[in-house]
């Protein structure tokens, strides 16, 4: 089925973190980076990696939830967390190849990108600023997405080498 | 008051598609003629594409150099305008230009220089359409920095080569 997906072009990421602000303003009512469903990791300055759900075709997080608190929105293909049902066990974070989900800093429930119902806020602000590190595409569900569920520090190590050559191997311990 | 325009150039964003050459020559010559395009993309090594075009230097050394006053500037956008009747194809404008940007037209041997398409450059349009943004319009007036962009495209490519390939970059262009 055709759906939206957020392309991430890490080299374009400026590190401004407006995505974290736009996301948390939308979901939490105010600027709260650590409650944002997209979080920008920066293990070394200049090497910024926006980290967010990739909507894997096999949804290991959904499969792993012991209380069925996770489900899939058939329209957007996003993962939906039922906050009432969630017990904050962290199984979904462990099941995720990139450890994307995290527990909300206040209520300790799993926090996962819901694609804002189809019109992601993070993409809008990234485009507005002219970075286009996050871009919306319309694609069918496919097996590539899961490859983007990577530990952001691993991504950063690759980016570091591309940016700094051999020196890049030294900048992230 | 008309906003000033200048074409900002980002060679590292250039894909090498050369649609700018095609759009420019279709507009000025009526058909696809890359070597008659006022913007020409140099590629001294694959992956190092450098769009080469007039920068509208504040002091217009080309205009000053012309022995028959065939060059002038348009009063609205400051583009260099070539009077092809007067031009004798002597090439003095090319020598005067820090980046050797002008060239003699392959058809009639007259000096050929970007005229900014009267305010809506075709090259920028197709570059934007394709999403490269290697050429973008900025609303900036004449300033001293423009001339710094008037560089031999091989020198630009040498810099890009090092940025892309590190030390190897120093070997890929002789």
């Amino acid at each position, binding site marked *: 089925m055709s759906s939206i997906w957020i392309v991430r072009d890490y080299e374009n990421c400026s590190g401004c973190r407006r995505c974290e602000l736009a996301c948390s303003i939308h979901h939490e009512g105010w600027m709260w980076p650590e409650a944002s469903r997209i979080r920008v990791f920066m293990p070394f300055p200049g090497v910024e990696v926006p980290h967010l759900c990739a909507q894997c075709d096999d949804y290991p997080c959904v499969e792993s939830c012991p209380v069925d608190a996770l489900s899939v929105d058939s329209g957007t293909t996003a993962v939906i967390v039922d906050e009432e049902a969630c017990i904050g066990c962290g199984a979904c974070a462990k099941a995720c190849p990139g450890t994307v989900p995290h527990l909300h800093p206040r209520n300790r429930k799993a926090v996962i990108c819901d694609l804002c119902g189809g019109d992601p806020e993070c993409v809008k602000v990234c485009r507005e600023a002219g970075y286009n590190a996050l871009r919306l595409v319309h694609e069918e569900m496919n097996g590539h997405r899961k490859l983007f569920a990577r530990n952001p520090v691993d991504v950063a190590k690759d980016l570091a080498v591309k940016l700094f050559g*051999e020196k890049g191997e030294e900048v992230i311990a | 008051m008309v906003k000033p325009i200048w074409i900002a150039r980002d060679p590292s964003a250039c894909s090498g598609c050369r649609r700018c050459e095609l759009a420019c020559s279709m507009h000025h010559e009526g058909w696809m*003629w890359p070597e008659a395009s006022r913007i020409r993309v140099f590629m001294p090594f694959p992956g190092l594409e450098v769009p080469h075009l007039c920068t509208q230097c504040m002091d217009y050394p080309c205009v000053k150099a012309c022995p028959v006053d065939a060059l002038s500037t348009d009063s609205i956008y400051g583009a260099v305008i070539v009077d092809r009747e007067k031009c004798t194809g002597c090439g003095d404008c090319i020598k005067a230009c820090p980046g050797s940007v002008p060239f003699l037209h392959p058809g009639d041997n007259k000096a050929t220089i970007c005229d900014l398409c009267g305010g809506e450059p075709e090259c920028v349009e197709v570059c934007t359409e394709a999403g490269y943004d290697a050429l973008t319009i900025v609303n900036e007036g004449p300033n001293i920095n423009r001339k710094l962009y008037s560089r031999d495209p091989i020198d630009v490519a040498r810099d890009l080569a090092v940025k892309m390939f590190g030390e190897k970059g120093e070997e890929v262009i002789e």
Partner: protein
Amino acid sequence: MTPGGYAGKWLDVDLTKDKIKEVEYSDKVLEQYFGGRGLAAKVLWDKVGEKYPELDPLDPKSPFMVFTGPMTGIYPGSRICVSGKSPVSMGTVGSTAATEFANEIKEAGYDGVTFTGKADKPVYLLITDDGAELRDADHLWGLDGEKTLIKLNKEVTAELTKRKPNVGLWKDPGMIYIGPAGENMVRNAAVIAKICHACGYGGYGSLMGSKNLKAVVAKGRGSLPKVDAPEAAKLLWRRTHQHLIGRTGMRRQGTGYAGYSVGAETSSEPIRNWQEEWHDEKSYGGPMFEHRFWVKKKWADFNCTTNCMKISYIKTGKWKGDITDMPDYELQAYCGTNFGIFDPEANIHLSALADKLGHSGINGPNTAGYAVELHQRGILKDSDFGFKPKWGDPDTFDRIMRMMANREKIGEILAEGTYRAALKIAEMKGLKPEELLKYAVHVKGIEIGAHGTRSDADYTHDISYAASVQGGDHTSVAVDGYNDMSGAVFTDSAVFCNFTYYGVPQSLVFDFAKAITGFPITLHSWRSETGPRIVTLQKAFLMMGGPDLEWEPVKDDDNPPRFYEPLPSGPYKGKTTDKKLVDTKLQAYFETLGWDERGIPTKETLKKLDLGFLEKSMSKLR
């Protein structure tokens, strides 16, 4: 009056006599054969005719052809087509590569160039608005592809500047060239362009090598040829690009994500010489190439906005300095998974090496993988290689590819391509040919592209390769004898890129073709007349073959034995190519094209397609 899109003449070079002349052909021939693949086949017949079976492809008499088509440079995706009698299939292949050389030669005023004879010392041909000349290439002979390009760029630009210093800066010329593999007449060597593009199928690099022809270089200052309906052409140009700009997936990834997905999803990727076709090695996913190695992500060829290309660069470690493209899927497979390698960095190195040596990154590695399987099975020994080859070991394949390019040790035999190497090794080891051929993955001498037929989940099936006149060429597969003609047969003759064809409505493509040439071209006319004419001529050449090799009708119109073994792993485990389907569809294919039940064109078909000149040769085969 030259039809639209054509420069109107091409060059004919006699390398032995050092003579160059200009050639013109009738509008009728241009309309019947179009350009590129089709025109080259016709010109080959005109030069060689009924003597074709006696012609050794690597003999000086053997013509080497380089042709554009009327749509080259004007339709997005500028490409050149090379052809001649293929040293591997003994038929002809329309072998193409993306390169600015293709539009430059038209801007210089020529539709192409043909070569016969052999230069007594290495030369390159330089083509400009003022004509063409052969120039000394002694100082270039022996250089790898990358060094060749670097030196030629400087030398030719300097020379053009010297000749016409006052016209302004001279841009870099377009060029096609060979590396050591072509120079040493490795039978399946490629003709390389722009570092990482290759006319890979057909082994035409060895044709150039056999003539001491190192490169063909062009710099023109003319416009692209005028077209029949310029206003329509300009409008169609904008519209075509709008379609291409909308192809976000192709623009973003090129085929650089397929090294993972063709293995994991369609289970049709060569692994260890096709012993398996499925893998799920996430280490080989697209992002693993992209994040660490793609230093330029929107890289295009002339007049194309697909920018499917990316530049990969290794910045650190022992392969620091290697430059290639993403690599494209075929080389991710052949220079990677086919070697049992699932490491992006090693794959980039081996792809860059293949490019530099001038190997076809598909055909050469097929032979290298074949050799390692023979070692696995105890047929070849460590002593044949001079070391112990190992699957999954980049150094093994680095060494084998160099040995092949330089014809050292077992490389001397492997340089003959998979099929002939199999026969030679059988002889060498005192074994029956079938014992060696059962591991050889080729069709009619042309090693098969990285899309298997056993899972049936990819775009390649039963007769895709078996019935194709270009053997294992994955870009030009046999579908049903009708639709094939409007795919690669068309793009290889119009000469522009396959990828700018798929993804644009066919009606738009053919309207553009008509606006350019003024010929009454339609999709239907291509499928029923022009395409079949070209393919029938190619079939005639293929079945004539010679001088030392002929293919057996029907028996050799088949898949290799490996493609009938059941897949050993993955979601399609147990599946294999359906031989019964191959047999029935092959007959249907022959029938659709008007060939007899042995695949030889009938007298009626030859007459209908205005190929009567083939009747005498075909009657000998019937």
